[in-house]
Structures are given as structure tokens and as C-alpha cells.
């Protein structure tokens, strides 16, 4: 059932929130790739994963900084983590409202951020810098269990923003149940895109092969999810702001950026490129694909946030 409520737009459709969601999603996607590489990859994959360890931690910090910037006053962020003495309806030192996805998301982001610390320090070792850190740091950051649990928190971080905007009364955002799924898929897509760029720079041909296969497969999954999402909206009669209003920016960015760059481009380029043999992988080509996909994922964040703005009755 489409949203018929007379809602106001929450003011999330701005560049700070768009970038915050994009950056947190990329961080989560990179960690997801690192977890897969550490669990199922070979030595070269683990080395690329080690190099990637530089990214998720600082990106999570950057996302948190953007969030506090959006709130206006940095210290207010603490009210999300700790119960204010003035919040009389809530008990306990840690703030948690089980009905609010924002509380789940904040806690998930904090735990995910903690998982990003070890890989960050271990990354120095992978780029040839001498590290005085104990061997345990290296072992733990490539440990299967550590990566499995960290990978789950990465996926939860990737999904969080989608579940957040899904749990509102905004048109488009709240019209279907698939936005959380869409967000986690695009988060993984961005992670593989970054992995492609890093594998390219590291001339890790074997890893590049896995990235190409993964990137194409996830792009296909993203295509299916987007088709379900748009199909739902069309059936409900609420798709117009996202896909139909070509005079506004949202629809063109959705079609060109999301469908074109993030989904079709990697599928077509990888499927029609050289046969997927490790020795034939074009390293520079993968870097280009990764960059284009990242632009597409940014377009996804932007167009989805702005789709509600176009539809809200004021």
C-alpha cells in the first residue's frame, strides 16, 4: 500500500547525509570483501585484504564526523549512545530504544568501528612499513572467526541506513520492504569496486579475477533487487518521483547512475571483456570499472534520498 500520509520531509536529502550513508556503506563493503578474502581467499587475496585494512576505520570515523556535522553540535551525538539524565522515560546508562532503527544502527556502527581498528594497524605491515605491533595483531586481523563476525557487523552497517529510511512514513522510502536489502547489496558492490581498484594498483591478478566475478555477480543481484523495488513501486503507483519525473534530477540520476553505471556497466564490461582467466585480467580496466561503479553507488544513495523529497506533500 503506498504511503498516503501527509508527512513532512525530514531534511535528510542533503549532501552531508548522502555522503555519510555512502561512506559508511563503502567502509562496510570493503570490510565485507576483506572478510571474504581472509576466509576463502589465497595468500594474494589476504595481502590485498590487508592493504584494504587502511580504509574502513578512517571511513567510519569520517561517516561519524559527517553525522555530527549534520546534527550541528558534536556533543549531541553522545545522546544517541548514553541516556541523557533528562530522558526520563529511558533507564540505564546506555541509550537504547528497541523501536528505533537509529539506536540499532548507532550501536552496530560503534561495534563495526571497533572491528576496523586491528586491520588498520595491520595494513602498515602489508605496505612494507615496519610495524612494532605484536604478531597477534596480524594473526587476529586475518583470523577467520574475527572476519566472520566483523563481516556480519559490516553487512549490518551496510543495511542499516536502508532499514532506517524504510522505517518511516515517507513516500518511496517506506512503500516497500526492500530498501534495507538494496542498501546492503549496494554497499557490497562498492566494497568490491574499491577492492578492484586496490587489486589493480597492487597488480594482484589472482585477486582481480575474484573481484571481477564477484563484482559482476553482485551487480546482477543489485539489478534483481532494483527491479523488485521499482516493480513494487510501479504496482503501488508511487514510482513516479524515482523513475518517471525526468524533468527533475532524481529520475535521470537513477536511470543513468544507478541502472547504467552501477549495474549495467560492470555486467556488460566484465561479460564482454576478455574471458575470465587470471592471466588475461586487465588491471587498469578493473580500476576504471571500480571507479565507475563507485560513482553509480553514490548516485544510488543520492537518488533514493531525493525520491521522497520529490513526492512529499507539504
Amino acid at each position, binding site marked *: *500500500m503506498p504511503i498516503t500520509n501527509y508527512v*513532512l520531509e525530514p*531534511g535528510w536529502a542533503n549532501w552531508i547525509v548522502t555522503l555519510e550513508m555512502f561512506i559508511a556503506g563503502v567502509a562496510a563493503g570493503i570490510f565485507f570483501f576483506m572478510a571474504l578474502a581472509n576466509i576463502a581467499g589465497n595468500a594474494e587475496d589476504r595481502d590485498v585484504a590487508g592493504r584494504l585494512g587502511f580504509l574502513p576505520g578512517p571511513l567510519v570515523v569520517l561517516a561519524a564526523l559527517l553525522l555530527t556535522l549534520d546534527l550541528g553540535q558534536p556533543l549531541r551525538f553522545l545522546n544517541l549512545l548514553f541516556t541523557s539524565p533528562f530522558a526520563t522515560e529511558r533507564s540505564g546508562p546506555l541509550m537504547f*530504544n528497541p523501536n528505533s*532503527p537509529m539506536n540499532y544502527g548507532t550501536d552496530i556502527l560503534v561495534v563495526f568501528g571497533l572491528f576496523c581498528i586491528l586491520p588498520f594497524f595491520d595494513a602498515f605491515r602489508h605496505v612494507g612499513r615496519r610495524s612494532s605491533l605484536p604478531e597477534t595483531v596480524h594473526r587476529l586481523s586475518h583470523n577467520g572467526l574475527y572476519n566472520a563476525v566483523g563481516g556480519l557487523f559490516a553487512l549490518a552497517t551496510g543495511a542499516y541506513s536502508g532499514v532506517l529510511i524504510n*522505517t518511516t*512514513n515517507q513516500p518511496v522510502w517506506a512503500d516497500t520492504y526492500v530498501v534495507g536489502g538494496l542498501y546492503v547489496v549496494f554497499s557490497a558492490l562498492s566494497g568490491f569496486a574499491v577492492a578492484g581498484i586496490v587489486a589493480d594498483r597492487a597488480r594482484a591478478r589472482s585477486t582481480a579475477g575474484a573481484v571481477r566475478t564477484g563484482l559482476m555477480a553482485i551487480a546482477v543481484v543489485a539489478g534483481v533487487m532494483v527491479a523488485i523495488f521499482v516493480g513494487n513501486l510501479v504496482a503501488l503507483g508511487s514510482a513516479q518521483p524515482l523513475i518517471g519525473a525526468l524533468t527533475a534530477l532524481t529520475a535521470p540520476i537513477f536511470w543513468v547512475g544507478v541502472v547504467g553505471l552501477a549495474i549495467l556497466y560492470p555486467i556488460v564490461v566484465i561479460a564482454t571483456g576478455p574471458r575470465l582467466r587470471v592471466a588475461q585480467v586487465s588491471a587498469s580496466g578493473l580500476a576504471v570499472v571500480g571507479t565507475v561503479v563507485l560513482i553509480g553507488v553514490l548516485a544510488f544513495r543520492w537518488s533514493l534520498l531525493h525520491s521522497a523529497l520529490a513526492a512529499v506533500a507539504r
Partner: protein
Amino acid sequence: MTVNAKGMFVDTTLCTGCKACQVACKQWNELPMEDEAAVRGHTAFTGDSYDNTGRLSATNWRHVKFVEQISEDRADARWLMMSDSCKHCEQAGCLEVCPTGALYRTQYGSVDIHQDVCIGCRYCVGACPFGVIEYNGRTGRVNKCILCQDRLEAGEGTACAKSCPTASLTYGKVDDLKAIAAARVKELHAQGKTDAYVYGWDLGNKGVITQGPNKGQAVADMEVVGGLNVFYLLLDKPSVYGLPSAPQLPQRNMAPSAGVALISAAVLGVTGLAAFRRRRMESASAARSS
């Protein structure tokens, strides 16, 4: 429902659109002008009948709506007016999603805001199905009608109800107000105004719209989001007054959305592992062939 909840009954049949309630609300709560430059420059007209604020906002906690229903031949006309505000829902979407506990239920059953606790995340803005609560750019926090909490604590009624010259707004215990509403609907039905029904609580009234573009359509009392502590007597479909016909809580989506995300994550995990496995198999086959 909150025991002995206080609220208001808004009888739209008695509203004359005088806006005394708007003024009283602004004055008591010391609310600033929405756009001072536009007001002073005489460019702040909405162009929508006698409506001067357009909608509820962070600085307009009460809004008198003007609905003009005039037939094409101009033979049939009526003017619907309604003084709107926060409904202080029994199941309040804003309160449910607030991640800091800034929004809270008072001892009177109303929904108030701890301004010190609000972080300005605006989640409540997107969650309210009535478009009531809004972000205040001047304070970086959200604002809405708080049912004159300070007046209630002093044993007074709300400022808007106090100023209403036609008793269109009545303040009191919600249970008492329901009885008043039920009696008023019966009175109107007896007068032939069968359009009258209650929006907010189901008191069992049913009727048929007698005038306007929806003439002949059935209407009935409707309880929405667990009941509204500020509820309305209407003469036409809710949408005519800018009210949703079936407002919903945002939480309805949380579990299904998380479920779809979980399934998607599982698909991603399998897909990612398969990508590494396929590469390993290809590498092995390449090594064998060489």
C-alpha cells in the same frame, strides 16, 4: 490508553476560522514568525483561501485550515474549517522512533519534547504520519504542539481552547470529550447532517456525506494509531481536511525490512564466497593445462 488522559475535541462544525486559537498558541508559547521578511514585505500570502500559515510547522503549532467546496455551477457551496495541531496519538510514531528519549509521554497522555535531549536528527519528522512535527532551523531541534504542558501543570486548559469563541475546541479528559463528541454527532444526525463522524476514535457513528464532491459516500467513525487524544468531528473524508485515511506507524516496516536485508546479506555472502571459489577452480584448471 493513558489513565485520565487529557486532550481536546475539535468540532469542525463550530469553527468560524477566526484563528483566535492560532494567535493564542503563538502568544502563549512565544513562537516567532515563520518568515519575518515575507510578512513585513507583504509577500507571505498563501493564496489558499484565508489560510495564512499553510501548514503546521516548528513555529506554527496550530493551523486553521480552510476548505472551499464550490460546485462548477456555483449553486452548491460550503466552507469547511478546521483548527489542526498535534494529535498526541496513543501510539505516536514520533515518540516510537526517537533514538534519544527526547520525545516522551507526559502524565496527561500528551507527547512532549525534552529540548535538552533532542539532537535534531529529524527521524520523528519523517515518522509522523500527520506531518505535525518539524525541525526548527533556529534551534537545531524539533518542535510541535505540547498541549500547553506548563498550563496543564498549573491546572489550566490549553491556550487555544481557552481562546476559542465558539467552543469548536474543547479541552478536558479524553473520556469526557468522547461522550461530548458522541452526543454532538447524534445531535447533528438528528438535524439531518448525517455527514458528521469522529476521526480519532470509533464511537460507533455511521453516516453519509450530504454535500460537496463526495456527496453520497459513506463515512464512519475511525480509530487511528491507537486513538487520538486530540480528535475531530469531520463532515467529509479525512483527505479533504489533509488528514490521512489510514495513518500507520513507521515500525510496521522495521522487521520486514530487516528480514529482507538479512536474506540479501546471506545471498551476498554466498555470492562472494562463490566468486573466490570459482577463481580458485579456474586457477587450478589453468595450472593443470599449463
